[in-house]
């Protein structure tokens, strides 16, 4: 794993020398409001190296606010955000990156018209030469891009092609490979499987495990418990800005997870309404009870 060497990062990391008893990243009672709207309240979370923490919740639950705080796009208004045991408030994505927190967003933070290697090194370009002759080390960047991607299992014919020509799953993998390469200690994945089909989702989930095995602490945001459960070590459930549960894998099953997320009371109401309109509510009742539907014989 390679770390970005620059003065600010070193200063930051010095401040954050890992104390043996502390976790990599901790949130304690973190909250954020936009004017009079409370987007997030009283959220606790722990992220450790080599572990996957899943953040689950429906739309409007506050998941994106949470990652924006961790990734440095916003600052929290209440609670504590600790990195290596020291309290921190990240002023910008640049500061977060220097501290080792990398986010891979749903819209991927890649520029479609630019070649893959330029995207890979965007914001962290390698240069050679000095003074006015400082120039991009193009060959080195192309080589590293190709190498890192193939290490992650992506075999590209040409890193010069615009990244927009890759499929959604491939772009996700490039973004993840980029974060891993640049020494991310914490990797945040914002709904990576939301727009992908079954096969592509499988591929991305495999990369999440790969990143975990490399020693990163992974935060996996999703609204799909069937994707979260296989790869997660702990699960944080958010609803309307608050935490409604924080479980480790041993404490909960996938059915309980699904039920908690869907919200039993709302499902019952929905079933009642549909029955009145003449629909079939049995499947909904099954889901509420946590019964997995059997395929028709």
């Amino acid at each position, binding site marked *: 794993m390679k770390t970005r060497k620059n003065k600010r990062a070193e200063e930051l990391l010095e401040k954050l020398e890992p104390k043996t008893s502390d976790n990599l990243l901790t949130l304690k009672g973190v909250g954020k409001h936009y004017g009079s709207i409370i987007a997030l309240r009283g959220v606790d979370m722990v992220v450790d190296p080599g572990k996957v923490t899943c953040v689950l919740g429906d739309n409007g639950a506050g998941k994106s606010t949470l990652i924006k705080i961790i990734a440095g796009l916003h600052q929290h208004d209440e609670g504590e955000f600790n990195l290596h045991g020291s309290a921190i408030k990240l002023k910008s994505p640049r500061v977060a990156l220097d501290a080792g927190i990398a986010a891979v967003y749903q819209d991927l933070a890649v520029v479609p018209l630019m070649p893959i290697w330029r995207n890979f090194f965007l914001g962290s*370009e390698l240069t050679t030469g000095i003074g006015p002759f400082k120039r991009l080390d193009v060959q080195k960047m192309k080589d590293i891009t190709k190498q890192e991607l193939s290490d*992650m299992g992506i075999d590209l014919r040409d890193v010069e092609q615009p990244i927009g020509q890759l499929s959604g799953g491939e772009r996700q993998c490039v973004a993840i490979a980029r974060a891993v390469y640049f020494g991310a200690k914490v990797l945040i994945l914002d709904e990576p499987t939301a727009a992908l089909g079954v096969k592509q989702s499988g591929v991305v989930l495999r990369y999440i495990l790969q990143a975990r095995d490399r020693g990163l602490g992974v935060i996996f945001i999703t609204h799909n418990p069937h994707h979260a459960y296989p790869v997660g070590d702990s699960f944080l459930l958010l609803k309307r800005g608050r935490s409604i549960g924080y479980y480790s894998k041993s404490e909960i099953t996938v059915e309980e997870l699904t039920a908690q997320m869907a919200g039993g009371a709302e499902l019952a109401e929905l079933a009642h309404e549909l029955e009145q309109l003449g629909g079939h509510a049995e499947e909904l009742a099954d889901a509420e009870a946590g019964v997995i539907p059997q395929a028709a014989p």
Partner: protein
Amino acid sequence: MSSVTASPSHKKTAGATDERVGKKSTLSVLLGRPEIGALVGAVALFIFFAIVAPVFLAPASLATVLFGASTIGIMAVGVSLLMIGGEFDLSTGVAVISSALSASLISWYFGLNVWVGVVLALVVSLLIGFINGIILIKTKLPSFIVTLASFLMLTGLNLGLTRAIGGSVSSPSIADMEGFKSAKAVFAASVNIAGIDVKMTVFIWIAMVIIASWILLRTKVGNWIFAIGGDEKAARAVGVPVVRTKIGLFMAVGFCGWVLGMHNLFAFDSVQSGEGIGNEFLYIIAAVIGGCLLTGGYGSAIGGAIGAFIFGMANKGIVYAEWNPDWFKFFLGLMLLLATVVNIVVKKRAESSK
């Protein structure tokens, strides 16, 4: 096509050649460049005028065409970079005149060596760019609107301040002031090459294109410019300094305006304060013909230069061909449209062949 393999343990070292990748021929690499369409258009136009007006091929004529192209080209360099970065600047036409007027009026009013005026004009031009950028960032209005406002304000300032300070609508003559001769030699002289007088602006233009291309393709800032124009949110999310780069781009345009303004001043001595209006669109057209996407994120400084050259050829070629002058503007528009269409057709073919 790329393959996403199931087992990530399948590794390849970067050095080993991938047998599926045929060595991309130089030709297909060339065809992929953004300027290729403009180049084809330029060659076509050149041949057309060479046939229609034999005097077009005379070296003296070519020097004149290059001169006409260079005064658009110098600005097209900055405007291209800005367009790749995703923004427009409509105040460029009058900003050139503002720069010239600043140098002239300051030198004249305070009785200074004109070089002092030249340096202060540079400060003014960079400041105009800076202000354009700051207002854009703070108000989050589209650059079209912000620079339209500065275009109007500069137009008024040009007229008002010239009359208030100099007493008329054109700046007073400074030809008899110290430093004028040396400044003229730098900004408005001609260089004699094999008996032909080539104006200084041509060389300045070429030098600026080279430097701009270097910055765009071989430096960090260039990578940032492409990123900001292609997807500003993505760039910001990975830590690219968007604000600084955008303001820097506007200041670069200001610098180009200073260069052209100084040529204007030392070539014509007295600057008409109402000039410059309308040129801003020519600079944008040159950049677009040269392959810069209006939406940003794609293009090149060389493309902008070719676009300016096409404009110069069309503009002067019509005169060399001695066509009916009433139809001049129509022919000019038609030439530009055809050049742009050729540009798009060639680009499509280049992309489909990949």
